[in-house]
């Protein structure tokens, strides 16, 4: 692009002013000129990408949407435990944002948010800012490494992965399992609820056991669960352990890992030290850092309280929070994030038009868990807004599969195809 003399002078002036009056120079640096009503969405995971697509779709492309994401690709966390089992690779779970831009006219900004100003209604990035009429943040989760002595983001990246965000750590954990000798021990920990994907850790134990059964049958899986009991699909997981992987999976409840010794891969609870060949620690979780920048984290320092009619923050007007970061009894899942994103998208469109959102939002959730290479189990619920409680309340009739089945394994694969296309295509 050619820069004419006047613009060159402007840029020059702004450049000088950055040093002298950073605030003023900053204000002139709108990354994408705002032409009409605009929603900025921060975070392009299941929740954020869905909100971006549905605002464009349901507003008849009238509302501008800028989607800010730091990663180049979308990687599905749901089903990523199957990478450990060996039936999928990370590339099977990877998508991109091209269609959101081309078909729906979403403006994608790749970058990291550095600050949010709820009064000026701006989102700051390293190279400029974005103004919004309404902001939707879908920050996902961050890990509270400081709750486990010896653990850090660096340790997780290098040797003791959480692999609780699908990507490099998932592949690393799979490689560690492949390198482990037959007869080795895989130790994994589960933090106290609430955490992302309630049945996910138990599914993981099954996927690792499934790999061991085929390739390293003398090996063991030990689960150290900070919770007093299995938090999801208990009967189905215990049946899978007993019937599919007899003698291989050992479950220990009320076992909170408070420390790790990195060199010896030892997990320490309040009562015991357990040495592993491959160690997988899931630290306690909280809303992603962007929630902190927006100042919308609750008194617990972890999750964000919202109005369930619109997902607008209880702290700041015009800021909406969706997905795992929301404080509620709703399960923190991919399906739930997309379901909340749609209610939020619909509400934002109405509110920008000066109207009331849907007063009876109704949504549903399903979590499929793969308990072997080809069998799955589910938990499914419908949730309705309860005005008295100002909360989403589970409707009657939900629940879990009667038994694991291959039919559900096939539908779980179909679910992944459909949800990825609903989010990205």
């Amino acid at each position: 692009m050619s820069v004419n003399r006047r613009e060159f002078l402007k840029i020059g002036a702004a450049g000088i002013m950055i040093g002298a009056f950073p605030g003023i120079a900053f204000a002139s640096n709108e990354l994408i000129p705002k032409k009409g009503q605009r929603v900025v969405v921060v975070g392009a995971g299941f929740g954020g990408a869905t909100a971006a697509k549905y605002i464009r779709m349901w507003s008849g492309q009238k509302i501008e949407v800028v989607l800010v994401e730091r990663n180049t690709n979308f990687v599905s966390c749901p089903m990523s435990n199957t990478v450990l089992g060996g039936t999928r690779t990370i590339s099977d779970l990877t998508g991109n944002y091209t269609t959101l831009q081309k078909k729906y006219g979403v403006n994608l900004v790749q970058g990291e948010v550095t600050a949010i100003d709820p009064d000026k209604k701006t989102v700051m990035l390293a190279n400029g800012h974005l103004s919004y009429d309404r902001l939707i943040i879908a920050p996902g989760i961050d890990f509270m490494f400081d709750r486990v002595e010896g653990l850090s983001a660096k340790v997780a990246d290098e040797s003791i992965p959480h692999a609780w965000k699908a990507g490099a750590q998932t592949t690393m954990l799979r490689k560690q399992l492949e390198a482990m000798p037959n007869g080795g021990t895989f130790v994994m920990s589960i933090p106290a609820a609430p955490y992302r994907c309630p049945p996910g850790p138990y599914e993981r134990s099954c996927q690792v056991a499934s790999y061991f059964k085929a390739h390293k049958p003398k090996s063991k899986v030990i689960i150290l669960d900070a919770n007093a009991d299995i938090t999801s699909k208990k009967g189905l997981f215990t049946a899978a352990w007993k019937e599919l992987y007899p003698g291989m999976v050992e479950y220990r409840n009320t076992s909170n890992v408070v420390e790790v010794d990195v060199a010896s891969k030892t997990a320490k609870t309040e009562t015991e030290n357990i040495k592993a060949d491959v160690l997988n620690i899931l630290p306690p979780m909280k809303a992603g850092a962007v929630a902190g920048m927006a100042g919308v984290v609750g008194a617990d320092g972890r999750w964000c309280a919202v109005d369930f009619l619109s997902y607008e923050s209880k702290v700041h007007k015009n800021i909406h929070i969706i997905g795992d970061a929301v404080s509620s009894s709703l399960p923190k899942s991919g399906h739930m994030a997309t379901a909340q994103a749609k209610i939020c998208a619909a509400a934002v469109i109405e509110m920008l038009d000066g109207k009331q959102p849907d007063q009876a939002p109704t949504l549903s959730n399903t979590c499929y868990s793969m308990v072997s290479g080809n069998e799955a189990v589910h938990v499914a619920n419908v949730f309705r807004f309860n005005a008295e409680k100002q909360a989403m309340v589970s409707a009657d009739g939900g629940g879990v599969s009667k038994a694991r089945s291959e039919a559900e394994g096939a539908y779980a694969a179909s679910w992944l195809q459909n949800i990825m296309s609903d989010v990205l295509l």
Partner: protein
Amino acid sequence: MKINKRLISVMGCAVLLSLTTGCATRTVDKHARNMAGSCAACHGTNGHSVGGAPVLAGLDKTYFITQMKDFKSGARQATIMNKHAKGYSDEEFALLADFFAAQK
């Protein structure tokens, strides 16, 4: 009642359509649309499934409602739809049936 008003507006639209050719922008029931949003994880955007789960877009209304009622009562055995169907009322089945029947 809400539901009646909605049905009347749909009927009004049909009458108008036959009399004039107006009613070009068929009003979407936004509550139904929002509710149907949760079905997309398994049935695709607006019911256009790209996987093994059935396509809902363009399903005949009567067929749709019958299936939902049968899922709810258990008359139709299924892997998962019994759980979902139990969460909705008959009035909501009708709203959802309208929404999906209108998807091309």
